[in-house]
């Protein structure tokens, strides 16, 4: 006995929403999904009329859907925003080349200007070269840190006021879990924020309009809207620690689908005790980017790569920052510790 759409009660339902379990027809699902993103944007006051917004586009499902929905809502509700696409080329052969093609296609479909920044031009290193030096265990740290700065640089080049990324509810929930597992109380407090603050040199404020959208719903949306995207996993990611959190989250979702939002709710409501040591925001003495240490993570990692000391930046080496800044040579013992890599 086919179910009727619980929203319009008119058409036959073609899908069941992972988020709430309601059966909906195609149009009502589109509308529900888009409306939720719209409400998130309005409630959190993410944008102001007249701003130019850079959409971080990787060619994957989240950014493809984000670009589509942003363009749609911008027109439907007259946000008055000027939209642009920013893409980052990490230099991962086979993976990034294909997804960049998708981004270029998106650019044509949505008629939005596109800027591609690459690790090669910004840092002089591609991810392929980095993995050769660093191995497969800590490479995600490099990629993540570099990408953050790359996005900011691209945004500055395009002169946008804000960046929006395609982080979805699953991503945010995973991050909460990961920060608990890693004991990173500072990040735990910040990670559920929907937008970042706008202070700092060369830093463009960024937000996550899809923060409350389930990953499965994003796929459903793209499927029914016939949006094309690139769906392969990064070839270097299988060993990332985040994988554990992700598997756990997927299992939780199968027991109780609302867990994803429940974890975000927990993250938003937890409170840190007074007197717990927190990092203070400053600037990097070398490149001027925001940093809580003397040298920003990017500079430290690059230094490690350029000197053939791949472990510099992985783990705690605050004491060495001064040495690096003043260009003192490191002792033999220090060098040995920083060279060892397990592949």
């Amino acid at each position, binding site marked *: 006995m086919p179910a009727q759409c619980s929203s319009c009660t008119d058409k036959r339902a073609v899908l069941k929403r992972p988020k*709430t379990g309601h059966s909906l027809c195609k*149009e009502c699902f589109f509308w529900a999904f888009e409306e939720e993103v719209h409400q998130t944007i309005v409630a*959190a006051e993410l944008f102001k009329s007249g701003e130019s917004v850079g959409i971080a586009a990787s060619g994957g499902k989240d950014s493809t859907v984000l670009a589509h929905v942003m363009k749609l809502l911008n027109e439907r509700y007259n946000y008055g925003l000027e939209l642009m696409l920013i893409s980052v080329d990490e230099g991962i052969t086979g993976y990034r080349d294909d997804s960049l093609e998708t981004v270029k296609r998106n650019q044509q479909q949505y008629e939005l200007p596109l800027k591609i920044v690459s690790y090669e031009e910004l840092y002089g290193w591609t991810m392929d070269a980095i993995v050769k030096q660093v191995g497969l265990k800590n490479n995600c740290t490099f990629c993540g840190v570099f990408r953050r700065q790359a996005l900011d640089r691209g945004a500055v080049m395009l002169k946008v006021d804000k960046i929006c990324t395609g982080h979805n509810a699953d991503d945010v929930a995973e991050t909460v879990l990961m920060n608990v*597992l890693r004991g990173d*109380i500072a990040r735990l407090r910040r990670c559920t924020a929907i937008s970042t603050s706008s202070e700092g040199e060369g830093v463009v404020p960024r937000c996550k309009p899809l923060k409350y959208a389930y990953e499965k719903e994003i796929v459903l949306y793209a499927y029914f809207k016939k949006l094309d995207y690139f769906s392969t996993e990064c070839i270097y990611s299988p060993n990332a620690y985040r994988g554990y959190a992700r598997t756990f989250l997927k299992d939780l979702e199968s*027991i109780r689908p609302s867990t994803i939002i*429940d*974890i975000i709710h927990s993250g938003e409501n937890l409170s840190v005790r007074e007197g717990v040591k927190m990092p203070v925001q400053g600037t990097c003495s070398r490149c001027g980017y925001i940093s809580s240490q003397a040298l920003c993570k990017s500079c430290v990692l690059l230094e490690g790569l350029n000197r053939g000391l791949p472990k510099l930046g992985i783990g705690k080496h605050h004491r060495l920052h001064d040495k690096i800044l003043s260009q003192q040579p490191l002792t033999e013992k220090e060098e040995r510790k920083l060279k060892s890599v397990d592949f």
Partner: protein
Amino acid sequence: MCQVDEEYHDQLERTDVLRGCFKEYFIHKFRAMLGKNRIIFPGEKVLLAVSGGPSSCSMLSQVQEGLSQKAHKKLRFFPGIVYIDEGGAIGQSTEERQRTVSELEVVFKATGFPFHILPLEQVLDLPSSVVVMALPPLEQPPSAYKAAVDRFNQTCGSDCLTPPEKQKKSLPDVHESHTQLLQQLIGSAKTLTAREDLLNTLRQHLLVYTARTEGYSKLMLGDNCTRLAIKLLTSISLGRGAQLAQDTGFSDSRYGDIIAVRPMRDYSAKEIAHYNHMFDVPSVLIPSLETKTSEKASIRGLTESFVTKLQTDFPSTVSTIYRTSEKLQTVCRSSSTDDHSDRCLLCLCVLDTAVEKASAFQATLISEQVSQTLSLGPGIPRQNSGPERPASAASAGQCRSLSGGEDCGRATSGGSCCSSAKETINLKSLLCYSCRLTIRDMSSVDHLPLYIMSEAQRRQRRSQMRDEISEFLLNDEV
């Protein structure tokens, strides 16, 4: 103390020197935990909640150790033991339950402390004062502890601590009908996660009630480090971020007059197992709701297997999670305890359901709203545009839960759609985010014990009263 690795411990288990060191270390941790926190005053009556498991039995043995004549810096409180027999809820036979109780009675009698053995069925007869936060004891300045200790030593000395009461009798007879009611109540929760949560809540209520009526001012729980790490992750997955500090911290003051403490929280499950084995601490194996279920049957079970597996690859997992829990606190939104409408009816923690702009909670309300009939549609002509229904998760939720996940479809008439004919209680508005999830998983709230429902009705009436006169109230009364 010698600096010996735990690995080494396994190999040299039989060496007396090592045994001595380990015992000292183990006992010291217990004393340090209590001494550092200075929350149990001399002469206080402390109720030890013993489940029969290794952790709580170890706690019991530590208290014994601490009160014994030869102890260095003896503990100075009056302990009592409580065991709650949950056999009725998990379907055990009367014989099985009696057997477990007899085993435990032997252990309890050997301690010489007064003990209370209660069937969980007693929870059905509790008064509604149990779910109301009582007035907390007067705030004591930090110097009060030292002063109290000095006073105690002068007046009493070490001979004062003999058990004054006679030992209570064992498991009172349980009516078959009560057991059935209890089973019906537990059975009305459709998921194992909800059942566990419900069972925990009922158990806590009975523990607090017992502590109050028998005159105990502190409740000691046997949660160890491993279990608390699992509890932290489970609580986060259940939406209990606001209540983490109380769920996993050393002290939990949600009940007001009774403070629950967790002195075993620094011990890993492994250490406790070692100690119990080495020093013959008796414990009784008692099945739970989760026994013989798959690891993905409930959120708690899944979390336990996740943490255990992760711990093997990353041995610092449990201690890192534990340290995270130490850095959390509870937000104190309202200090007034006069009006209890800002506390959850079931778990007694401060409500975390204020609809803040751009919050996960608001997002769930919006999702419910846009997925059903009523609001502005996408331009498709609507045939039945029923009257505007408020976007409360309450009524929508009740519909869904009653018909098992599917929207009842005929919900456009608003108000009392599928709920029962008697006074419709908007139970959800009285609960915190996570307790709402538990109720949502229940097929019917009719089986909830009387004390919960009558308190719910009382609070609702009071809330209606307040709405009537809200324009005349001067203070921002919550």
